[in-house]
């Protein structure tokens, strides 16, 4: 009992001295921290930070929107007229849809990278930009659409008009079909998008 008392005291003092030696040694070890805003760490190639969409390449396939687990991507597309030429993507795909809305709510984004893989044209990707804090949360809603508001309107109006024409044509065809004895279930045309 008495022996344990002295051993305890000895052990305590000794382990304190060992600890003090270690911390004293670290006084002279160069710091591992960096002065962040002045010195910035080099991010690896694969760093996943803010999303960026290259709209020139976007074909409006909605794959990224579907892949997003938190629904932070919102895309609206409008069919282009057969006469329109939207150009091709850098991977050589022909664009067929006007992308009238491509919003990413980066405040919701969980940086999971799932939207990047399905993209057939590799137009959505994660960049190494990580300093994008804002005072107003609305500023974190990024609009990537390159079309102006007016252009969107015209595109939509044109599409609606085209849709109407098509519907009229279809109705005419249906009327013809009705006249004919063959009964075919008339396919419902999708409602024109409100412009």
């Amino acid at each position: 009992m008495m022996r344990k008392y002295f051993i305890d005291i000895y052990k305590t003092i000794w382990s304190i001295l060992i600890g003090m030696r270690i911390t004293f040694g670290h006084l002279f070890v160069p710091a591992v921290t960096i002065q962040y805003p002045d010195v910035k760490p080099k991010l690896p190639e694969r760093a996943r930070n803010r999303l960026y969409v290259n709209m020139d390449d976007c074909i409006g396939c909605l794959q990224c929107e579907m892949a997003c687990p938190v629904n932070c991507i919102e895309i609206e597309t409008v069919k282009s007229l057969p006469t329109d030429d939207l150009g091709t993507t850098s991977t050589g795909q022909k664009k067929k849809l006007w992308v009238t809305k491509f919003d990413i709510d980066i405040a919701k984004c969980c940086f999971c990278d799932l939207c990047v893989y399905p993209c057939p044209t590799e137009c959505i990707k994660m960049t190494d930009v990580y300093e994008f804090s804002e005072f107003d949360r609305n500023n974190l809603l990024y609009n990537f659409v390159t079309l102006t508001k007016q252009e969107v309107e015209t595109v939509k109006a044109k599409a609606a008009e085209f849709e109407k024409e098509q519907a009229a044509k279809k109705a005419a065809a249906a009327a013809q079909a009705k006249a004919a004895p063959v009964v075919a279930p008339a396919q419902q045309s999708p409602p024109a998008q409100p412009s």
Partner: protein
Amino acid sequence: MAEISEEIIKTSTGTTLRHEEMVINMGPQHPSTHGVLRLEVVVDGEIVIDVIPHIGYLHRCFEKHAESMTNYQQVVPYVDRMDYCAAMNMDFGYVLAVEKLLGIQVPERVEYIRVIMAELQRIASHLIAAGTYGLDIGAFTPFLYMFRERERILDLFEMTCGARLLYNYMWVGGVSHDLPPGFIDKAKDFCQYFRPKIKEYNDLLSYNEIFIKRTANVGILPKDVAISYGISGPVLRGSGVNFDLRRDDPYSIYHKFDWQPEIGKGEVGTVGDCWDRYMVRMREMEQSINIVEQALNQIPEGNIASAIPKRIRPNPGDVYVRTESARGELGFYVISDGSGKPYRIKARSPSFVNLSVIPEISRGGMIADLVAIAGSLDIVLGEVDR
């Protein structure tokens, strides 16, 4: 609610003293409840009479969320967020469950990459556990040393998949990225750098007499109690039960490596005290380093994406897969109804089960002991509440 008993004590001089127990709220904003745990503590002076843990402050409906995803892969980011200190281990358990449901055999390289990542993550997680444990006991410095090492592991992860905390790295059937060039050398460097550091921590913290006095013979969790509470992981091993799912129910390729589970031996106190639980983690880090080194030496070449399915649409059925996460037995019970999204996912989270033993082992101790016990269980509230 615990009853507050009031009694009148007669002192020797004949005067009467009112004697009353005090209910005190530890958390959800308390510095050492490791998140948003609330412990309702009934104390008599400094002595803890009873503890009632209240959870749910971080409940994010993980299981319900999983049902409303459009496919199985989308669940992985949510799984990441369960145990944010060991996201790789969480991913590992989930993808293994879905792969079993699908009947996929992943390429060998993928298995190796997964094991390397999971073991590195285990080290990172144990570093947090041990560091914050030191912080609970009052030693500030080891905490920062351990975070410095963890940072190097996170650098390795960032290099591989671009994220530092929530990786979404393991996919059903594969991993998102192959190892980047230079990864193996860097990881080997880390292993070499890390081994001597463990000794430094042991000198600075583990074998510090004050630390031992604070943790040895405190919060003793006997074998039988641990088993009947369903405790798992380092806490169970700390109680002297030699049980590690990596060895006893081997998944992935753990049977290929030469290592053994660490158990608490009660060197400075009783088997199953706080010090044992802490020390099991410290020693497990060395074992993990062993596994990582072996895996780095053996890793074969191969295509990591060959087994990733185009569409994940398992046949109707259910599956339970358990893995050894950094905190214990992590089980995923996945039911498929044949559609593209899970019908139901249930996670058996180790922290939740381990937390349930707090009242049992902290009665009769002091408030300071309660802090030491809560720290030694190493709970992550994200996983407790899900």
